[in-house]
């Protein structure tokens, strides 16, 4: 369970998050949507402390991420993240990208990690790219490798930060397919997305973020059928 309590984040004088509170239950697939500049990505990045919140708390299974005594590296391993621009390591092959973190930080043996890497690449349909370098992959392939890389840590949670925003339309589908499969397997996840159909299809909860506050947090069907707030209604009208 991920609990966010009264989270604030500002960059200099710019207030981005203005007191966010919500809970992600086990096996939830929460879609975080809302207008640009509403703080969606910042919120996601505050959950695994890639961005340090100005105030407020983030609790993952009861462990306070904002506490200085928390082993933040260990907690991040339980909480995988996928970025908009993939961020594969270009100096490493696909294989090395996948086995790097588990072998270096968890002491997993090379053979074991490689075995799992093959399995995960197979799962995202890219086993043939095992020894390829990222430069040779298309955007959609890069993002699927990035998802496999995050899964190598056996995370209990996955954070997707606009995973398809940097992709050509024909590649969006293959990436969304992988995320959909993960959701079906019961992976707990939060996805910042602009893909409204996908959001409706895959998420069970929608968090509508506007101007740094949670304007609405409700079950997906409910949200699409009849948004409670005027702002959410207007937003849906514009994007659907």
């Amino acid at each position, binding site marked *: 369970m991920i609990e966010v309590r009264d989270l604030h984040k500002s960059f200099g004088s710019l207030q981005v998050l203005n007191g966010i509170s919500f809970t992600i239950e086990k096996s939830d697939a929460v879609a975080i949507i809302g207008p640009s500049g509403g703080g969606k990505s910042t919120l996601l990045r505050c959950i695994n402390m890639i961005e340090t919140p100005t105030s407020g708390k983030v609790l993952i299974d009861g462990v306070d991420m904002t506490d200085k005594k928390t082993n933040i590296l260990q907690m991040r391993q339980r909480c995988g993240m996928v970025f908009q621009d993939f*961020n594969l*390591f270009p100096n490493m092959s696909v294989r090395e990208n996948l086995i790097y*973190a588990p072998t270096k930080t968890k002491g997993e043996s090379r053979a074991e990690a490689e075995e799992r890497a093959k399995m995960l690449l197979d799962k995202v349909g890219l086993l043939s790219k095992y020894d390829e370098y990222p430069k040779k992959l298309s955007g959609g392939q890069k993002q699927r490798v990035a998802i496999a890389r*995050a899964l190598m840590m056996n995370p209990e949670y996955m954070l997707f930060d606009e995973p398809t925003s940097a992709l050509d339309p024909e590649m969006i589908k293959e990436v969304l397919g992988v995320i959909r499969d993960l959701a079906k397997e019961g992976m707990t996840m939060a996805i910042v997305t602009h893909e409204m159909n996908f959001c409706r299809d895959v998420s069970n909860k929608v968090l509508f973020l506007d101007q740094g506050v949670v304007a609405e947090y409700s079950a997906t069907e409910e949200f699409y059928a009849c948004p409670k707030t005027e702002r959410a209604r207007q937003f849906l009208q514009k994007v659907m």
Partner: protein
Amino acid sequence: MRFDKLAPYSPMFLDAIGTTIQYTVISLVLGVILGLLIGIVKLSNGPVAKVLKPLTVAFTAIFRGVPLMVLLFLVYYATPQVTGIELNTFGAGIAVFGLNTAAMTSEVFRAGIYSVPKGQTEAALALGVPKKMAMMDIIVPQALRSILPAIVNEGISLLKTTSLISVLGVADVMRTAQLVMSQTYTAFEPFIVSAVIYFIMVYVLTFFSNYLERRLRKGD
């Protein structure tokens, strides 16, 4: 022209090449390692880095602003006077050339590391990789690729700069040419030989760097 007059001195020139290579390689290795560390300090915001940062800036400024010949004399002749510690020519040379290389390459490293996209660090952090490990395994290798030509230029310039050590009487290529001149009463031949030796060494270095660059580029 009487190049044959130089034949008896070829063992001297060979030794001299060894000396020049020795000064260059040791100073370069020490300088690049120290330069990398200083470059990282210049980019860090940790508590230790905050204290060290002004020192690194002053360090770079000194080596940029004072001629190496002056520093060489200061270190070699003035250190014993001030501290009572006698430095041999080797120690003084390595210290000055190594620190100079560190000062110059620290700026190159700083710029190179800064040019690697932030997302690379973030991706590593998100995988639970400690920051220092991410720096050494992911950021620095990527930075190296773009700055390798600049580092090699620094090495080439260092190789030529080591000829300054001749003023302390060390028999490097330059000093050897001078010695041969005074013994054979010819100037053109020994200095042409030393020029060709320096040129070939630089050429080999350039060739090696092209090879390294190609290897580092396998990712793109």
